[in-house]
């Protein structure tokens, strides 16, 4: 017990606390971006996209090539890469994904196959070593004792902007309304005038857009390699279970919980404790409330 408290004491140090919070926010933001797309595909098309992380990987490589090979400034390269990947992925939507709409179980295994194809295609194309996207800024911001790296701050700002845009899109546009309706009852939505084939494409585009953005940001603060997608996918998966499969606010809440758990528990008790805690909590949650914190039970 004493040991427990003394470990928590670390968090009282202002330098540590400031970083813990910034880290918590940036981790959460990235997890949420990946998880949102994942949950959107599940909610609307009942597709468990086990290849979702690989779209993050593609986004990161697009960003990498645009900044490093074409020397585009990152403010242009980021949106261009992300939109480019999402647009190009529509080919995959047509070739692969549409076969799995409303077929949850088949989608899991079929898309796992796509996942392998994308990873090892990436290995053939890009080799396996890790690459670095030049940081937007090497500076750090000093607020008293708190040190915040500027490039983290930029990531946080971009991610939050993207999340806000997504929220506004879902809440206040016609396509957003159509998606929310389709997520609850595709068949009925179709009879009320929602063109589901079209909405599927839009949802797919948005989901991949978010994943590619998350991947680009991930690549920016960490590194880029064909295996980049594995960790974000794992995290998104847990986030989505935690928040409730298909629930958009659930993905946001789950991402925030997981990001801050990793940051706080990791700092106070170490990485293993943080991993065990995340998994343990999610297992217990599943036993008592399998539909997640903000999900709704299915009959």
């Amino acid at each position, binding site marked *: 017990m004493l040991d427990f408290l003394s470990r928590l004491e670390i968090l009282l140090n202002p330098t540590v606390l400031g970083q813990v919070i910034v880290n918590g926010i940036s981790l959460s933001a990235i997890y949420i971006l990946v998880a949102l797309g994942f949950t959107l595909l599940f909610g609307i098309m*009942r597709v*468990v996209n086990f290849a979702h992380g690989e779209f993050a990987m593609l986004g990161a490589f697009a960003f990498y090539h645009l900044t490093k090979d074409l020397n585009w400034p990152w403010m242009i390269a980021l949106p261009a890469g992300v939109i480019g990947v999402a647009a190009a992925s529509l080919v995959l939507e047509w070739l*692969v994904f549409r*076969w*799995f709409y409303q*077929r*949850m*179980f*088949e*989608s*899991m*295994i*079929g*898309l*796992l*196959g*796509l*996942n*392998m*194809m*994308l*990873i*090892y*295609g990436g*290995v*053939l194309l890009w080799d396996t070593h890790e690459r670095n996207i030049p940081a937007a800024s090497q500076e750090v911001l000093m607020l008293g004792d708190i040190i915040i790296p500027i490039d983290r701050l930029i990531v946080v700002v971009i991610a939050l902007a993207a999340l806000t845009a997504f929220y506004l899109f879902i809440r206040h546009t016609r396509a957003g309304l159509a998606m929310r309706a389709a997520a609850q009852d595709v068949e009925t939505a179709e009879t009320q005038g929602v063109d589901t084939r079209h909405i599927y494409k839009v949802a797919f585009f948005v989901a991949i857009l978010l994943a590619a953005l998350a991947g680009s940001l991930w690549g920016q603060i960490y590194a880029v390699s064909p295996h980049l997608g594995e960790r974000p996918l794992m995290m998104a998966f*847990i986030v989505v*279970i935690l928040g409730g*499969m298909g629930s958009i606010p659930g993905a946001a809440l789950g991402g925030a919980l997981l990001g801050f758990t990793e940051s706080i528990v990791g700092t106070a008790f170490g990485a*293993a404790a943080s*991993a*065990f805690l995340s*998994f*343990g909590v*999610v*297992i217990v949650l*599943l*036993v008592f409330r*399998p*539909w997640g914190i903000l999900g709704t039970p*299915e009959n």
Partner: protein
Amino acid sequence: MTQATKITGGVLAAVVLVVWPWLTDDRFLHHVGVLIMLTAIGASSLHLIIRTGHVSLCHAAFMAFGAYGSVLTVMSLGLPFPVGLLVGTGAAALLAATIGPIVLRLTGKYFVLITFLFGEVVRMAIVENVALTGGSNGIFNVPPPHPIFLDTKAYYYLALAFAAFAVGLCARILGSEFGRAMNAIRDGERLAECSGVPVIRFKVIVFIIACALAGMQGSLMAHYNKVLSPENFSGIISLNLVVMNVIGGMSSLWGALIGAVFMVMLPELLRGYVNIQHIIFGAILFATMAFMPGGIIQAARHVKAMLSAKPDAPAPPLARTGAAE
């Protein structure tokens, strides 16, 4: 198929399985034979769970319990292999009896999720518990069950015997009244329960038997590989067992067996193209799920139906993850 052809076929298959190792001295082929036999235990035991409508993604965790339980008994306590095998199998069964009543209350995708997470926790616990399990480096110099089994051909017969026992047990259970009750559970859990089937108890019994068999496979695998490491009990391994069932076809035990043979042979067939093996494998998974969701068994039935030009029966539903939405 008539009774007579069935019996002839069975006898023929048994003879082939017993005799073929003598037709070659390629130890590698014997090795593949061992792998197929051992994998068949895992695949068919998982099939048992799938037949109650649950797709478990932690079967490898039970293999791990069997493997570590057996190896530690033999290596740390110095007890003979049969004791180790029993301890390993028992450990897996005990774990199943402990978690079964909790996790089997969940159905469909929730069961998939919780078993996936549970499998990860077991793997992480093995990795972290270096003192007991050797951590990521595992345990090496694991002795064979008996020096005689250093010969791969001999091990094949050991594996064949255990596989015959496991597959036979699964087939017998599925064919019994108990198996019919399992079908009722899969088709409608609430309706079965209200018809007097003690659903949770039956599911737990199935889970314990299946996981004990998985533990048995783990033990046999560990003493065959002579090295034990957590990588061999990761989520991917559990998933592979599911994939075997899916590719073979989840509607019958044959599917699991066909899937096991297929999935053991496939990497060997692809070994020549090391750099694109995973891409091909991924494409096979995608194509099977998109165009042949009933697996090889179902596809074969289609072909047969087309040949005999009779309308084929509607495809049985997949496990409840997909159907009961």
